[in-house]
């Protein structure tokens, strides 16, 4: 017998309680603290800050804990908190040229002014599970310091070295530091979108999505072969200039990874050939994301470069509308919400269409005396 059950509110509350219980796990095991997450899962923290578009390590650690380690859930929590925050100022453009560099490498030159600085990287590790970590083995030995201090004004490979010869397309810094920059969190995106908007979209875009698209450009779904001109990772200071003050003040440091790619050249009989550029910038140390972003940025410049669009990474609307994991996960998962009203409409139509076909078949059977399935086709 059918009885409409009204348990909605109670069921939801109980589901939330069960979720909280599962998040905590076995109570005999110490509860993880957010400062442990902040320190020891720092790459998760920076990913959540980057895609959550909010630079706050403590909140990111809290979001990771609350999201049970599901980083997209954590990013969602950050975004929902972020929208409620007032904007009290816009920073001045950060100067990555003045970055306090922890790592800086170039793949285009063996040696170069400022040197190759490896810094903390997984790149040359052997991916062998280290069972001593599981057994809470010894604390790692302290890393030795370099003999020479790192160059404070680390030359930029593209601007200071390649551009010296005019070999790479010039990208002058806008004269007006206060020129408006697009912001997709405050204005609806319209297409075609400018590069500022595209870069903002990529920087907060899903790492996996940007990675896959970047990869696709290397496999023929775009034609913009790239070299990593430079990757640098370190801290830069953020400055704001309050109107009533009239000069800039430093409000703190942020960690960034920046990648500049040197891409296939362009030129003609009358114009000197020049390499072109792709750019990636992301919170924290995330070279995978920064390189992928630079690849996709360059691919999305197809129109500007007069290139034929042949791959999804070159299609700005496609990339920008599908890069956001909070949007994607919401819409993909929403199909688990009730749809029975719509489904009822489909059921009714399919039943009606089936009845009509059956009726037609029966009629032709009666007329011909035999059933001829072919005739129905």
């Amino acid at each position, binding site marked *: 017998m059918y009885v409409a059950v009204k348990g*909605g509110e109670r069921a939801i509350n109980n589901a939330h309680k069960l979720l909280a219980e599962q998040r905590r796990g076995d109570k005999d095991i110490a509860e993880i603290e957010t400062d442990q997450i902040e320190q020891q899962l720092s790459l998760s923290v920076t990913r959540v800050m980057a895609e959550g578009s909010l630079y706050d390590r403590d909140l990111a650690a809290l979001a990771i804990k609350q999201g049970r380690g599901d980083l997209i859930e954590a990013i969602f929590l950050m975004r929902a908190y972020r*929208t409620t925050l007032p904007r009290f100022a816009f920073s001045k453009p950060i100067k990555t040229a003045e970055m306090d560099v922890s790592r800086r490498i170039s793949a285009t030159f063996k040696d170069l002014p400022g040197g190759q600085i490896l810094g903390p990287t997984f790149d040359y590790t052997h991916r062998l599970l280290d069972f001593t970590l599981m057994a809470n083995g010894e604390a790692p030995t302290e890393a030795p310091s370099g003999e020479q201090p790192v160059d404070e004004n680390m030359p930029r490979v593209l601007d200071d070295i390649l551009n010296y010869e005019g070999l790479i397309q010039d990208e002058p810094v806008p004269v007006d530091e206060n020129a408006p920059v697009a912001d997709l969190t405050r204005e609806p995106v319209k297409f075609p979108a400018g590069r500022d908007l595209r870069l903002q979209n990529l920087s907060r875009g899903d790492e996996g999505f940007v990675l896959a698209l970047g990869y696709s450009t290397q496999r023929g779904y775009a034609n913009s072969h790239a070299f990593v001109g430079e990757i640098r990772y370190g801290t830069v200071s953020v400055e704001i200039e309050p109107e009533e003050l009239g000069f800039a003040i430093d409000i703190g440091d942020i960690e960034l990874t920046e990648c500049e790619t040197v891409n296939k050249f362009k030129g003609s009989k009358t114009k000197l050939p020049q390499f072109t550029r792709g750019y990636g910038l992301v919170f924290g140390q995330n070279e995978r994301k920064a390189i992928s972003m630079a690849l996709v940025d360059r691919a999305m410049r197809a129109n500007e470069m007069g290139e034929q669009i042949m791959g999804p990474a070159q299609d700005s609307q496609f990339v920008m509308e599908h890069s956001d994991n909070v949007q994607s996960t919401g819409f993909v998962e929403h199909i688990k919400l009730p749809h029975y*009203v719509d489904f009822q409409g489909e059921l009714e139509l399919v039943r009606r269409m089936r009845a009509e076909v059956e009726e037609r078949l029966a009629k032709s059977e009666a007329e011909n005396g035999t059933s001829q399935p072919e005739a129905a086709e």
Partner: protein
Amino acid sequence: MEQTVKNPADGAPDYNFAYLDEQTKRMIRRALLKAVAIPGYQVPFAGREMPMPYGWGTGGVQVTAAVIGPNDTLKVIDQGADDTTNAVSIRQFFAKTAQVATTEKTAEASIIQTRHRIPEKELREDQVLVYQVPIPEPLRFLEPRETETRKMHALEEYGLMHVKLYEDIARHGHIATTYAYPVMVDDRYVMDPSPTPKFDNPKMNDMAALQLFGAGREKRIYALPPYTKVKSLDFEDHPFEVQTWEDECGMCGARDSYLDEVILDDQGNRMFVCSDTDYCAERQDAGHRGPQHHDQPLGTADRGKAAE
């Protein structure tokens, strides 16, 4: 049936009234005014990230947050019902952040937020119906490029849509769209009515209430001012028609409402019941009975009995 309830006034002290800050509300209201001025036209707006997922009604929630005031009474339905999980969640959200009165009664609500249905009861001039919209662009599945679809709307170039409907008839003998059935608004814009069943399309025409549509993920708002002409697309020889049922509502015996099919067992037994729970309850209160009604008013059964 739950009557209108007042909600405690100290719901979410850390957040502004109805969650959104006033600047954001102004931005949304400006978009709404433009939408009302150009019925059926999709106005881009800077949709915010909300504390519920995209696809769960963030557009409708933002529109409701922008128009709601302390004296409003809010009703939220999903699939026509007040007690579906997401409707409960959104109603609780506004009970907490706006502390407004909430109700399950269509007649007592000043704002009704809905997903997938229009209430059976005729709405009045002093009511606002807010729709949650997943894909606002009716041409999207015919043309994925936004730059193209904007042009098509601007030039009133809707041939592609008619070709699609014609192809349906050629292939299936019917226009094979049962929900989100495209409508022509005020003889100008083709509009997606949101995924309501086409059964509800005629209710949109000449409706006394203001109808507002919010698509959060796609960042679009559109509107139908009261008494706007809304016509479902069709052909002279294939006129638009709505779903019909051979059955009646098992609980209240209604034959004029949209029915949901309820599977009773694995032997093919099923019954039909009104999708609009308020409509059904009101009819039962008035003494109407369907064949499966055992004088158990809808909604009062506890879970133990349900299991029997």
